[in-house]
């Protein structure tokens, strides 16, 4: 594991400076500061955080909620775990700032079930904050602003990382995405306006408030301000969590982690895209290759069809089963990959599978189904030689 070093999150900073500065401002000013920083959601979708906060702040509702999405389930992603282990205060500080900005008094951390072992430490941190008056009635002495945080554990469904499924799960229902619109900012947890932000987004928001929007914008690119945490795994010398400015090219990143000579990089986990070596000059940023932070390096010896199969097995398992394209599409694509593997897939059927992939991207109810075929489609497009022309194997000759 690399030592944690980076410009914004993994740098030196004064704890609670962001919260103090925010509480000294009007709510609208906080939102406007976050907005002008250009901070975008770090979960992968890249929605402007300030805009999300602004809609929730304007939404009518007796109660409002701040939800921290810590259901880090994307294969190859582990940066939120690092943040919650090493910088839990920064995350909670960000939640309090968000709560102040939108007028919420209740924060919920939806913690991935597998991270249950972090719970005692996080609860202790929360208690410390309560004792330090950073949570509870009149946070930091700010009259009229009370805010507390509770931690709720997920139960292992990948789909609960999707914000509306997460809210269903919080309400005690089976984790399944809702129809949108309306969005959670208007109608979220218990029908109240709710913002759901990624762990990293909230930590960054705290840093934005402490150092200011202008400082934040110095990092990254014009359309992708700030830095990004990357969870790097696979065929490289130094896997681990890294903080790089947004806009870093894949080649630069591979150099930093000792992964030069890779055949391909899967950016964005199972739901992301497979980038072949010829495209390593591309940048990791919202305007080029958006990512939630997972970077899986494939060395020269890797079987790309095998990688596609691995990802598709994951989705076939994790599809919540609610909508038709995702429930059955993942299975049909998986069967198709197996056909390709044993050389029994015709070109016509491959074309049909790719079209089905497009249907899934377009017609699935939520982001899970919409992104499930991404890896397969990009691998089929970029590694045609590997995908096609497999030696035909007779039926029944297992793995």
């Amino acid at each position, binding site marked *: 594991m690399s030592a944690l070093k980076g410009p914004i999150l993994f740098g030196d900073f004064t704890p609670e400076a962001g919260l103090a500065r925010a509480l000294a401002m009007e709510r609208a000013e906080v939102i406007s500061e976050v907005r002008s920083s250009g901070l975008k959601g770090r979960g992968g979708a890249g929605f402007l955080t300030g805009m999300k906060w602004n809609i929730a702040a304007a939404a009518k509702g007796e109660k409002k909620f701040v939800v921290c999405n810590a259901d880090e389930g994307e294969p190859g992603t582990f940066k939120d775990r690092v943040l919650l282990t090493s910088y839990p205060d920064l995350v909670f500080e960000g939640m309090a700032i968000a709560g102040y900005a939108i007028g919420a008094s209740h924060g919920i951390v939806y913690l991935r079930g597998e991270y249950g072992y972090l719970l005692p430490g996080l609860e202790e941190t929360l208690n410390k904050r309560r004792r330090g008056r950073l949570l509870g009635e009149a946070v930091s002495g700010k009259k009229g602003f009370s805010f507390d945080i509770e931690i709720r554990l997920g139960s292992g469904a990948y789909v609960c990382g999707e914000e509306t499924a997460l809210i269903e799960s919080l309400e005690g229902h089976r984790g399944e995405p809702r129809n949108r619109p309306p969005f959670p900012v208007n*109608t979220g947890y218990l029908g109240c306006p709710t913002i759901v932000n990624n762990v990293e987004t909230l930590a960054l928001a705290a840093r934005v408030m402490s150092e200011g929007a202008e400082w934040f914008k110095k990092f990254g690119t014009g359309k992708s301000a700030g830095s990004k945490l990357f969870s790097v795994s696979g065929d490289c010398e130094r896997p681990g969590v890294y903080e790089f400015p947004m806009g870093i090219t894949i080649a630069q990143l591979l150099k930093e982690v000792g992964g030069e000579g890779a055949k391909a990089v899967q950016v964005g986990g199972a739901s992301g895209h497979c980038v072949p070596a010829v495209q390593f000059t591309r940048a990791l940023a919202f305007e080029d290759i958006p990512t939630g932070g997972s970077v899986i390096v494939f060395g020269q010896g890797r079987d790309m069809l095998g990688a596609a199969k691995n990802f598709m097995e994951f989705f076939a*398992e*994790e599809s919540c*089963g609610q909508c038709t*394209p995702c*429930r059955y*599409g993942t299975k*049909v694509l998986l069967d198709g990959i197996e056909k390709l593997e044993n050389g029994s897939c015709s070109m016509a059927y491959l074309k049909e599978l790719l079209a089905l992939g497009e249907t899934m991207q*377009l017609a699935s109810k939520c982001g899970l189904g919409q992104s499930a075929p991404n890896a397969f489609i990009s691998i089929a497009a970029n590694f045609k030689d590997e995908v096609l022309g497999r030696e035909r194997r007779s039926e029944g000759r297992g793995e």
Partner: protein
Amino acid sequence: MTSKNIESRAPASQRRQVVPAPAADDAIGASVSVTIDGAEAKVPFGTTILEAARMMNVKIPTLCNHDDLCIAGVCRVCVVEIEGQRTLQASCAYPVTQPIKVNTHTRKVRQARRHILDLMLAHHYGECYACWRNGNCELQSLANEYGVDGFRFGKMEKPRYAIDQSSYSVVRDMNKCILCRRCVRTCIDLQEVGVLEAVNRGQETKIACFMDKPLADVVCINCGQCINRCPTSALAASDPTDEIWAAIDDPKKHVVIQTAPSPRAAIGECFNCPPGTPLTFQMNTALRHCGFDKVFDTNFTADLTIIEEGSELLLRLHKALVEKDKAAALPQFTSCSPGWVKYLEHFYPEMIPHLSSAKSPQQMFGAVIKTYYAKLNNIDPADIVSVALMPCSAKKFECNRPEMCDSGFKDVDYGLTTREMAAMIKEAGVDLPNMPKSDFDEPFGTATGSGIIFGATGGVMESALRTVIELVCGIKVEKLFDHADIVPVRGFDGIRYVELPIKDVGPVSPILENHFKDWNWLKGATLKVAVAHGTANAKRVIENIKAGGKFSECHFIEFMACPGGCLGGGGQPIPTSPEIRAARAKAIYAEDAAYQVRKSYENPAVAHLYENFLTDGPCGHRSHKLLHTCYTARGKYIL
């Protein structure tokens, strides 16, 4: 015309999300412009694309959507392309909140629809020839409509799941299920029973009962509303047709059939007649053609039910008002809907004393046929096969209740649904709508209008009121209500409440002399009654009673398990919708209006039965033995 205007209990992922209107547009009439396939229209803020399309006569295919149910947006068949949006949107679930341009048949949309149908067909164990929904299957129609010409993604060669035939009423075949979840929403949202839920994930997803138990071992009330809303044959009623044919074929058996009021108003739908085509007398002929030895009218025992249940109500009122006995459980609940009875037994067993002990008309008839009728005609009751044509799946369970053997035999042998009857009539080669008319058989032939309206929500209450008003007040109902139509208890509002002051009382009629000397104790009282249909509404009423609310002051409450009452029962023709149920109700009330005798107590055959058979009168010893029953406190947890 919504039967349910209460908040949904379904998870938000399984219902339409209400979009709060922006503050500035709060004014009533705020409308948004929507352009569909080039045509523009203004629609109210929050109208879904599907609703807008229907207003504009644009057809969008649907599958998981149903007029009676909350919106799920899960099948995705109704996707459309909105200009400027990356993904397609489910038109059933997408509210129009700003001007949008929608295209309903672009390349992407057509491709997606075909793929979605292909995917469903690949995972639906399709045996269309051998399927009772052949010709009435929404999946089949869509496949036809959208040009499916092959199994692009393969097909199921073997069934994956065992068929659940544990229940007397409902059969579940998950091999036919396409996971539209209408049954789930019917059960939890429409009926608030909630025995069905999606379990597992991905392609292992299936609809199951609690802990994957068979349907007979969960709190299913057998209402069969799920069957009526299933687009395929994943849900069916348990079909006794073969046994009935066998009985008809057996020369030793005397096969009689009683027909409830609702099937006759709906069976035409199975023969391409518009909903609400009454075929009562054509059906009588058709049933005889099928081979039934006698065709009786359940309305006869509906009238009998009114006398028994009405007498029981008066006895309870006397107990409460005169004897000041707190044990007189008021309000009295009707007991003719077996789905409702089982609902109460499961969910509110502590309220069982409120249930009228009177059997349902079906079971009264069963008991009378194998005793009175058998004796009258010198037939060994062991040779009688008694069939009940009902709009209902729960009736199948009811006739199998162990306590329903008061004649010394199984009082009713088979409950047959309207759908199954239609299939038998078709199998017999009978062209029902064009049959000559014929009447019911004696000695139960004469019915009254009161019996027929049992089929509609509020009908039992209206019949009871017609009789009670005349017996107690000594005046003609027509004096209070034009044509004796007690309109306040009619309609489709989920819960209705009516007060009826008893200003004057008349003499006690001979039929009730065993129990009462005079009615003076009722003079000046106000009779408070209520009607609820659909168990979701029933639940509201019961909760209100338990909380000491307005309904705890009631004296008599009619409950029907199914939305719309029996005419919307789980054995009725598919499809169902508020409009179809309204048409059936119209037919039923029209038939009532056509009767000469419209009050149960005036039914001469009923009077004859009391004079010659149930000689100690209503709620007497003999009627108690044959026409009344007891209930089982089942509770929610079944081991």
